[in-house]
């Protein structure tokens, strides 16, 4: 174990090591997310993920946000285990009839102020599953949605961009104080 830890300590951070064309954009995006998160949230925003009927594809990419390449926590975002600790609900999937009640209750258990981000094409309007007897529709058909992140599934980069957009457009502007710029 020591070897692995030491190896990690002496090697360069992953994002630096293998720059590829698309990673420049990612880095730029990361910087913007970082700056906005700091200004608006004081580096603290709790996310509760709710799978309301997804195929699990979106979950995999949301998971990826936590890996060393994207490292969502450096912006002050973190995933929490309970809706009672959450500021944002990240909801995936077409909402199935069988999950409708659970989603509503999760929403109600989340304290105000709260924002709902619908992740994936299915979450927008039911996607390919729209019209099924077992599907209620998109997330917006059950709880109010603040932002949609498109994709099937959206890549971690899309998700980062989406969270940035949420902060820019939806979260309240911080009050200007005389000591601030």
């Amino acid at each position: 174990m020591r070897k692995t830890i030491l190896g990690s300590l002496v090697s360069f951070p992953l994002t630096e090591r293998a720059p590829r064309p698309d990673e420049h954009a990612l880095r730029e995006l990361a910087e913007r997310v970082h700056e906005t998160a700091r200004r608006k949230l004081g580096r603290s925003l709790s996310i509760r993920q709710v799978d309301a009927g997804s195929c699990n594809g979106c979950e995999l990419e949301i998971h990826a946000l936590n890996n060393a390449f994207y490292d969502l926590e450096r912006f002050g975002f973190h995933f929490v285990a309970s809706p009672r600790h959450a500021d944002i609900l990240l909801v995936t999937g077409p909402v199935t009839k069988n999950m409708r009640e659970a989603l509503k209750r999760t929403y109600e258990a989340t304290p105000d102020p709260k924002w709902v981000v619908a992740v994936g094409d299915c979450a927008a309007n039911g996607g390919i599953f729209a019209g099924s007897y077992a599907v209620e529709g998109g997330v917006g058909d059950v709880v109010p949605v603040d932002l949609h992140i498109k994709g099937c599934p959206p890549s971690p980069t899309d998700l980062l961009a989406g969270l940035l957009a949420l902060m820019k457009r939806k979260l309240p502007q911080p009050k200007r104080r005389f000591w601030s710029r």
Partner: protein
Amino acid sequence: MSTLLEMIADGRQIGPHAPWPRAVMPPDAWAFAAVQLASGAWTLVSLWAEPGEVHLALFDPAASAIGVMSLRTDSGRFPSIGASHLPARRFERTVRDMHGLEPEGSPDNRPWLDHGTWSVSAPLGAPSREVVSPVVTEPYRFLPVEGEGVHQIPVGPVHAGIIEPGHFRFSANGETVVRLEERLGYVHKGIESLLVNTPLDRAAKLAARVSGDSTVAYSTAFAQAVEAACDVEIPSRAAWLRALMLELERIANHLGDIGAVCNDAAFALMHAHCAVIRERVLRAANAAFGHRLMMDRVMPGGVGADIDRAGRKQIKQLIATIRRRFPGLVALYNDTTSLQDRTVHTGYVDLELVTQYGAGGFVGRASGRAFDARKVFPRAPYSSLDFEVPTSDRGDVDTRVHIRMSEIEQSVSLIDRLLDGLPEGETRTDMHLRDAEGMALVEGFRGDIFVWVRTKADGTIARAHLRDPSWLQWPLLEAAIENNIVADFPLCNKSFNCSYAGHDL
């Protein structure tokens, strides 16, 4: 005693039906199948229905053969297989929910996927059976657990992590789990219903979204079933590319889950390193095939994405990275005794149970059932490639982790040879559907995915049935957790990593 195929040959053959036969059987053959299943001579592959008919897909291990028995049910009833063979029970409860057909003699008549929230009952049944109000009105009855000091812990459907929804009802005595009862169906989207009379391309898209982590495996299984029905031979380059994608998907999922099991034992270091390699797999997949999960890349008739020189190089680099990095992680796992303290002897499942349930994948193989669809029903390119199917009989969390580690090594070696031997040529062939039925069994990372389709000459899919390997693994999780402590449930659960979406459909 006659073999499964001899028995089916005596029935009224349905054709064309490929690659394995289906026949309409008399009730005594159905009863005989129940006996064979209960005695362990045959293994249940799946049980599903359509209006007026119940289908039973069986595997005869002695002959390595699959066959489907169908029973006419004009009365809306059929003799229960689950009455004598436990693994059939959830299938029969589903048939009752979806088709309104009654399994006669089944001791468990509780609904399964139908939670009473749909606007129809028996959505896949005969149209005349459709009613407006839901039939399920009473609250779900969990099995009673009695005894001094027994308390219940309800968990879900919304869980604490970034995972799919399902309900677990623990009955515990102190810290020890006396019984776990699963309740699933929360992510039921009615996929089989959406597949009825659907154009082929839309059906393929739906199949690719049954379980996102196994999208390649599902697409491949669906495509193979359609190709079998229509007697279409795909170009060999397409078959090799499918195998390449399947192995990439297997590695990505195994990496994610090995890390997650360790994370559930609070060993985040392993999780972080596995997640990094997993991300590299997804990036290589994206570079080679244009989608991180390779969704919609496999389609009936071949594949929709060919690999170029750059993509090939990315994957070659990826396997070099895995060969360099992964052995260190295996050693890290093996050298960390505090981690093994949690995984060894935890969540034990014995050979008898995995054989009875016909559990596939690493869940079966970690308990001694050496079934791998790539070996039992070899197809190109697997038939020409040498690889091992890691098997053990220790049956605990640790063994399931080890089996998956060994499978990663096998898959890396397979990918290397798949890239080297990749034949030149076309990657797709034209699909012309005909009135026929086809089946396929494809080894996804979780185990064997079974797909049955009925195609129509007008280019649509008349009906399809997709059975996730989790159907036969979820019940074993209930057995694995018995007498373990509640705190070890996440470990046990992650070591199985059954699919909710694939099961609920």
